[in-house]
């Protein structure tokens, strides 16, 4: 401890440079993590809000919601605390005079379905041809009472409620009931239980009997991983983060090794005087931990400040437990990096200090 910290204080430039390198690495790790979280959140925020555990799709849909078609009546195969039908449309929300156009993810369920979001202004859907919209769409010029079109048909619906911002597939959401969505889509059947939907969402759901009626069960985790592009995005960003841990380890390891080689004579003198490998390694560890802590703390500080001034269009989410885990991983990389010099330190022959 004493030796390590005293040396850092005496060689401020040398050690602040390495702290700086670790700061940059931790900054990139935290920025990538924040962006990965932002993208992930953009894809799945609406799903997370459902707090559901199971999804039921057509067994031939390759586990993809938009590729799945089932009938409302198929709900009879599923039992559970709460089961809600789900239909989606990725389309353009536009006002009747095309004054505003925004790409949205439209989600339809039953009017009292458990996945219907809580209204913050306006009222719940209580009649035909009503929509509720994500609060983020207010900024795009949409407001209560407005008549809007969804997709490319001429059919209109009225905005009756607004709920806290949510996104699905990186687009803001709008919710409606199944019949309204089918009417807006110009589907042939727009009432009754023969309407086409994409699937069902449930809390603690299960099949009632061995005949599944062509439905396939997915856990929520599987469903999210199968969102188009989701795994690829997350895998790419996370792989970059994991590589950065290895790079941090290599940088600390190489730097500490070079310093150790430079200080062989000094370490020889220490060993002659009875200050052994254990104490020298403790000094190296103290230094790399101190540098890593300095780098990580400043990196976190910069990340948090940058998050405040980022444009709204850049999805960025700080997940503290995850950032804590990444900080520990960087710290571990620093510790392992310092330990790579163990053999070199242990092999320094104190006799080199004499003669």
């Amino acid at each position, binding site marked *: 401890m004493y*030796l390590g910290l005293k040396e850092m204080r*005496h060689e401020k430039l040398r050690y602040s440079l390495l702290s700086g390198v670790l700061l940059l690495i931790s900054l990139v790790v935290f920025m990538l993590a924040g962006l990965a979280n932002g993208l992930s959140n953009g894809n799945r925020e609406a799903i997370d809000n459902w707090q559901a555990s199971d999804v039921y799709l057509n067994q031939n849909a390759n586990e993809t919601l938009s590729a799945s078609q089932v009938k409302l009546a198929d709900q009879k195969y599923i039992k559970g605390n709460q089961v809600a039908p789900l239909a989606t449309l990725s389309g353009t929300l536009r006002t009747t005079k095309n004054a505003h156009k925004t790409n949205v993810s439209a989600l339809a369920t039953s009017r009292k379905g458990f996945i219907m979001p809580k209204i913050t202004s306006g009222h719940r859907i209580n009649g035909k041809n009503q929509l509720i919209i994500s609060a983020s769409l207010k900024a795009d010029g949409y407001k209560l009472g407005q008549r809007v079109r969804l997709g490319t048909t001429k059919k209109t619906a009225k905005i009756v409620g607004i709920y806290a911002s949510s996104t699905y597939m990186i687009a803001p959401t709008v919710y409606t009931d199944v019949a309204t969505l089918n009417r807006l889509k110009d589907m042939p059947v727009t009432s009754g239980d023969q309407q086409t939907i994409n699937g069902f969402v449930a809390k603690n759901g299960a099949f009632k009997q061995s005949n599944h009626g062509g439905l396939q069960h997915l856990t929520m985790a599987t469903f999210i991983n199968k969102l188009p592009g989701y795994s690829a995005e997350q895998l790419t960003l996370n792989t970059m983060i994991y590589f950065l841990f290895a790079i941090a380890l290599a940088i600390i390891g190489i730097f500490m090794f070079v310093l150790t080689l430079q200080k062989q004579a000094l370490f020889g*003198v220490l060993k*002659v*005087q*009875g200050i*052994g490998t254990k104490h020298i390694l403790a000094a190296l560890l103290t230094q790399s931990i101190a540098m890593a802590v300095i780098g990580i703390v400043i990196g976190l500080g910069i990340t948090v400040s940058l998050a405040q001034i980022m444009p709204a269009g850049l999805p960025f989410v700080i997940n503290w437990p995850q950032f804590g885990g990444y900080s520990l991983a960087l710290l571990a990389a620093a510790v392992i990096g310092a330990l790579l010099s163990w053999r070199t330190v242990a092999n320094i022959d104190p006799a080199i*200090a*004499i*003669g």
Partner: protein
Amino acid sequence: MTAVLALKQINKEFGHGHTAVTALKDANFEVAAGQFVAIIGPSGSGKSTFLTIAAGLQTPTSGQVLLNGTELATQTEKARLDYRFNEIGFILQSSNLIPFLNVTEQLKLVDKMAKRPFQKERAQKLLAELALSEEATAYPNELSGGERQRVAIVRALYNDPSVILADEPTASLDTPRSIDVVERLAKEAHQHNKAIVMVTHDQRLISHCDVVYRIEDGVMTRQA
């Protein structure tokens, strides 16, 4: 007088067979508390080998090294490290000071390693004895060669070892400074009742020593 450090019938060979080199031949040596002993010899005579064996950094091919009556060769590596820390003080050729610690911190480090509080009064007393009170907060690169060696003497004495081994402590000094350092070593040996062993090739310094050993081609002889 009982010997603090004694080497008995020490032989040290490097290599095997035809290429074997004998660095020390049947060397006998002893030093008692309060004695200032010089070992003098030309370079390549085996002085450094003697010192590394006396310090337990190398084991002899045969013979015994006794430090306070305990044989070093039979100790574990860890025990020898502790021995060196507790019982032997070193003064090395140029400087055995740590570049990033100031004079006082060099001494504090000894206490840190021994896990005890800093002995402030002892430090001040020893620094004053070697005329270093003014330099207490100076870093090694701010000191002259003579001052550095005096700090090394303080550092060696500070841990109150049984024996101090000095390896050419005047190698980088001019004559007046060399004589100053050697006079101080002699004084410390007598005043603190320490056994001090100085290895040197400088004939002019031996008048200050109580006993002189000569070493040539690995053969050690005690001078009258």
